[in-house]
């Protein structure tokens, strides 16, 4: 791993178009300014990883869905909406995809 020392207001360049600058240092917290092209996604690592592992957990669930009391008896249509179906005020979002 490359380790560089930087002071406030100094920066580094990654590739041709990603700029990371040290905006502020307070105690154990460092504020970074990141300038990158729109297609370069910048996330806090822990957020990214948390979502990723939550997705993996979600995908492992079985196919028996819980019953939430107030929705009990309301059945959806597994085949989804059909062409011509239009969203109605109280219908839930699967009329959703435009045909």
């Amino acid at each position, binding site marked *: 791993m490359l380790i560089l020392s930087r002071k406030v207001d100094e920066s580094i360049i990654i590739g041709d178009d990603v700029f990371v600058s040290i905006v502020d240092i307070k105690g154990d917290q460092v504020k970074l300014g990141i300038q990158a092209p729109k297609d370069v996604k910048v*996330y806090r690592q822990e957020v990214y990883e948390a979502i990723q592992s939550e*997705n993996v957990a979600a995908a492992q669930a079985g196919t028996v869905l819980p019953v939430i009391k107030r929705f009990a008896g309301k059945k959806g*249509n597994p085949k989804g909406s059909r062409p011509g179906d239009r969203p109605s005020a109280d219908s839930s979002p699967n009329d959703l995809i435009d045909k």
Partner: protein
Amino acid sequence: MQVNTKPYGTIEVDERQKIHFPFGILGFEHLKWYVLLDASQAPFYWLQSLDDPDVAFVLIDPLVFRRDFILEVSEEELQEIEIEDKEDMLVFAIVTIPENQELMSANLQGPVVINRKAKTGRQAITLNPNWKVKHFILEELAQVKDEAC
């Protein structure tokens, strides 16, 4: 078209229900095509991968259990799925259902946004730190009830 689904086996789904996820879902980046199905149990939906029948996510409309949920994500994330009008936008949370189903939770930190017109979708990352990867649905629903009283 015939679709192999995790919850229902092979079913017929209208071709026009195909949704393109150009970036996939985090952790499942290689899967780019999905269909949105009503679940047999309201208020859930299934987001079924067309590339891998074993991959399907349970979705819920966050407003069902959090009336105060507002999508706060970067404009770029929305532009990348060609959202021009917020009216075209469907917002869901992925539901995790553990063995004890009462502890089912919804991920509001990584909401799924679908453009119903362009039929594109993505998992966005919310900019508001109040939204977490685990919101316990029943617990939050109980609070909605309390507020109503």
